[in-house]
């Protein structure tokens, strides 16, 4: 005897949860990219919120740690909480603002999570970066200019430029090899200060110590140190404190490199 087969019943709750999961994931991706590229916590939270609300769900809460980002989104009685890992923090102004622009566009509605995800992938792939040689040259020029601002004399200008430029070039290579950022700070501090000090001595500079100090200023985390304060003022003291500790640690390692260089060159502060 044949019995009429009932159509399979679809439980709406798992369906809504799957939809919420996709939205939470894409909102977290936006928050992650913003956090990793120099945005403050408030901006990262705002970006994630814009994405979620543009996709038609309510953001019930967000939380940022130094290495993770969490969001709770909901619609009606369904809610979901998800977390994503945040990678190394850096500064990439063009990517940061391209993602903010995407969040603004998505907040007006009309985009699907898949479209936002593919746009994010495209932005990460195609946002232009300056070539490494130009970054090294510009960083060298910036440190040499810093040296002049600190009172370093003209004979030490080119040595500072070369030392910091080479330091940036080596830093780029070491970052690509995945070496720990603090170890990199110590290595670059030592290399840049040694080259800067030796060069300044050979050029007859009377401000060798200043030249060595200026040569390592590429390692000073200026954006994180001001972001730390912004985060605390915006009501995120945990993240602000984490950034401040990170800045201090980077400086300790950079100055360790400088101290080794001073010992090598027998310069006593």
């Amino acid at each position, binding site marked *: 005897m044949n019995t009429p087969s009932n159509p399979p019943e679809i439980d709406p709750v798992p369906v809504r949860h799957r939809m919420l999961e996709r939205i939470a994931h894409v909102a977290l991706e936006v928050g992650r990219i913003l956090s990793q590229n120099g945005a403050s916590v408030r901006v990262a939270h705002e970006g994630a919120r814009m994405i979620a609300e543009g996709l038609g769900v309510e953001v019930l809460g967000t939380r940022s740690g130094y290495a993770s980002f969490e969001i709770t989104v909901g619609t009606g009685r369904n809610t979901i909480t998800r977390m994503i890992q945040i990678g190394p923090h850096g500064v990439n102004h063009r990517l940061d603002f391209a993602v903010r622009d995407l969040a603004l566009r998505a907040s007006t509605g009309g985009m699907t999570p898949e479209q936002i995800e593919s746009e994010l992938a495209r932005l990460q792939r195609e946002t232009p970066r300056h070539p490494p040689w130009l970054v090294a040259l510009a960083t060298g020029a910036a440190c040499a*200019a810093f040296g002049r601002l600190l009172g370093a004399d003209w004979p030490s200008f080119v040595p500072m430029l070369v030392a910091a430029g080479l330091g940036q070039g080596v830093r780029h290579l070491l970052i690509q090899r995945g070496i720990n950022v603090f170890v990199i700070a110590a290595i670059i501090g030592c290399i840049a200060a040694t080259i800067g000090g030796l060069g300044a001595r050979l050029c007859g500079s009377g401000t060798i110590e200043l030249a060595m*100090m200026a040569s390592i200023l590429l390692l000073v985390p200026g954006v994180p140190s001001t972001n730390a304060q912004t985060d605390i003022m915006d009501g995120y003291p945990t993240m602000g404190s984490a950034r401040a500790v990170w800045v201090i640690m980077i400086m300790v390692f950079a100055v360790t490199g400088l101290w080794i260089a001073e010992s090598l060159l027998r310069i006593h502060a």
Partner: protein
Amino acid sequence: MIDAAVAAVLAMLPYLGHQALFGAIAAAGFGVLFNFGGRALIWCAVAGALALAVRTFGQQCGGSLEAASFLAAAVTSCAAILSRRWLGVACHAIALAGCIPMVPGAFFGQALLGFMWVAGASTDHTVPAIVGSVQAFVRVISTVGAIGAGLTIPAYLLRSRQF
């Protein structure tokens, strides 16, 4: 008296110009490191020149490094916010890049080197080194604080905190 003031300002112009020029180079150089685009880099240089010019003027008028840094950061932040029409939403980032040359990294290094020397010193005459290092460290904290406050206070007051 006005003649004397004008003469004093004219006398400091070469130094002011020197500081502004190297402030512009430092800000633009770090702008490249932070991956600012071509047009934004020019604005970074302008912001750096403005910040260093104001800070130098403040110090030449007898202000402390901290007070002059606060004034310079506040003026740069206000100028960037008021120029939002041309700078776009990146105005805060440009003001920040302009203030990077004022971050007292050298004082930080000096403080840490001093602490390292004290830790390894075998003499009893470490007090001057400790005092010098603590002073440098306090200057770092107060100057970074002054720059951060100078950048953010105008943004709060002028309600320019958009995404």
